[in-house]
């Protein structure tokens, strides 16, 4: 089959999948050896696969996740035996969870800003030196927040202090989190991780006096029912943005990334990223 006649895309796609019988496959290959347009068609088919593979994985929007949780909560377990109490998994640590920290309402919020004063200074260097500390932080478990860990301005690391839930009955819940102001212009690709290089805590202190930002982080944390790992005031595709990272599943190194503008409007759908 040479000359003016060409194979259609379907035959070529079947060839690529190994679906053609030997004789037909042989004939089509012979044709491909001499026919540029058919070769291009075959390349187009490969491009289709590549394009499909590069579409990023979307995270389930919060609203949908909450709707499903509510629907399931409203439905009694059809297998429950009313009289007996079966052992529940709540006694077994399935995976680490982040607990947000309660502090009395009249205490200042623990958010601190760590502005990136010298972007050229080796971020890599001090991050590596934090390795041992990070390991130590692991001992303190998931309720330890970075704010209190990395607040020393000199680059030496402060004594880890665990943030403690106070027994105060105050209904207001304040969050402790680290705010950076890197001004980095994030791309979607960078925000799919690993994020530790961008978000990793830096030495430096400051007070987050931006109530609007605070309210926004608070709102997102309430929606997600967990405290952020880190917050960065930066750019997203050239627009001013606040990027928040929350653990989605720490055991799987999965992070949910929320990107909002100054008015706390989401600039894109929540995405999933890796931390390390």
């Amino acid at each position, binding site marked *: 089959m040479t000359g003016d006649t060409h194979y*259609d*895309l*379907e035959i*070529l796609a079947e060839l*690529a*999948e*190994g*679906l053609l019988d030997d004789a037909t496959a042989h004939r089509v290959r012979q044709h491909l050896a001499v026919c540029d347009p058919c070769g291009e068609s075959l390349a*187009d088919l490969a*491009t*289709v696969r590549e394009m*499909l*593979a590069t*579409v*990023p*994985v*979307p995270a*389930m*929007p919060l609203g*949908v996740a909450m*709707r499903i949780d509510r*629907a*399931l909560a409203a*439905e009694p*377990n059809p*297998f*429950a*035996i009313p009289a*007996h109490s*079966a*052992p*529940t*998994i709540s006694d*077994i*640590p399935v995976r*680490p969870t982040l607990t947000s920290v309660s502090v009395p309402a009249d205490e200042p919020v623990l958010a601190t800003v760590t502005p990136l004063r010298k972007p050229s200074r080796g971020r*890599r260097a001090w*991050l590596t030196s*934090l*390795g*041992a500390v*990070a*390991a130590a932080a*692991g001992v303190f*478990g*998931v309720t*330890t*927040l970075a704010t209190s*860990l990395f607040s020393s301005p000199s680059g030496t690391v402060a004594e880890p202090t665990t943030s403690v839930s106070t027994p105060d009955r105050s209904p207001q819940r304040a969050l402790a989190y680290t705010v950076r102001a890197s001004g980095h212009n994030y*791309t*979607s*690709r960078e925000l799919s991780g690993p994020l*530790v290089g961008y978000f*990793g805590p830096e030495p430096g202190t400051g007070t987050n006096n931006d109530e609007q930002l605070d309210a926004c982080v608070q709102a997102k944390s309430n929606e997600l029912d967990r*405290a952020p*790992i880190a917050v960065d005031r930066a750019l997203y595709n050239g627009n001013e943005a606040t990027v928040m990272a929350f653990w989605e599943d720490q*055991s799987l*190194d999965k992070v949910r990334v929320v990107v909002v503008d100054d008015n706390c409007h989401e600039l894109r759908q929540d995405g*999933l990223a890796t931390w*390390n």
Partner: protein
Amino acid sequence: MTPQPEQPAPAEQPTAVGARPAVTDADLLTRHIGGDPHAFGEIVKRHRDRMWAVALRTLGDPDEAADAVQDAFMSAYRKADSFRGDAAVTTWLHRIVVNACLDRMRRKSVRPVADDELIEAAERDTPGPDQTAEREVSMEVTAALKLLPADQRAALVLVDMMGYSVEDAASVLGVPAGTVKSRCARGRAKLAPILSHLRNRTDLSRVSSAKGAELRDG
């Protein structure tokens, strides 16, 4: 909250945190059937993002996808005892989600369309080039996928987009591996002209931009 060393990580990687979940999906399902009120919620938490991705790509519409995933999880919750240990829990969940999606698609009657109509429709659904390149590709693909018959779309979502093996996709879809291959082949053949058309259109519009000129002129 345990910031971890930057990669390549030194040896101090905290071990307790990076561990795989100790409780398997099958354990959780067994507990759910045993009456545990929390077990199924954990299954949902583990798999909802993947189920969302499958449904959103198969249906191409967030509202439809949300309904389909919710229906699927509710159905799995109720008929958990129909799970037979011969497949992975994830495969079983995928099957329920994909079937929920296919049901929804079949309920809307889809008339066969000609190729040039497909391209026009994809063009209409694809926004202009003021998007980031990545987002653009993703929207193009979504628009183009919508034009495929349900069976081909479901096969391509599982194999090409989610990266599952043909065998896994076959057990999710409940058809032989050869059928999955041929649905993928026919789907790709249909997508190739649509996507290459959209790509050319995008490339043309890019050349006029500074960055495009830079790329073009080296």
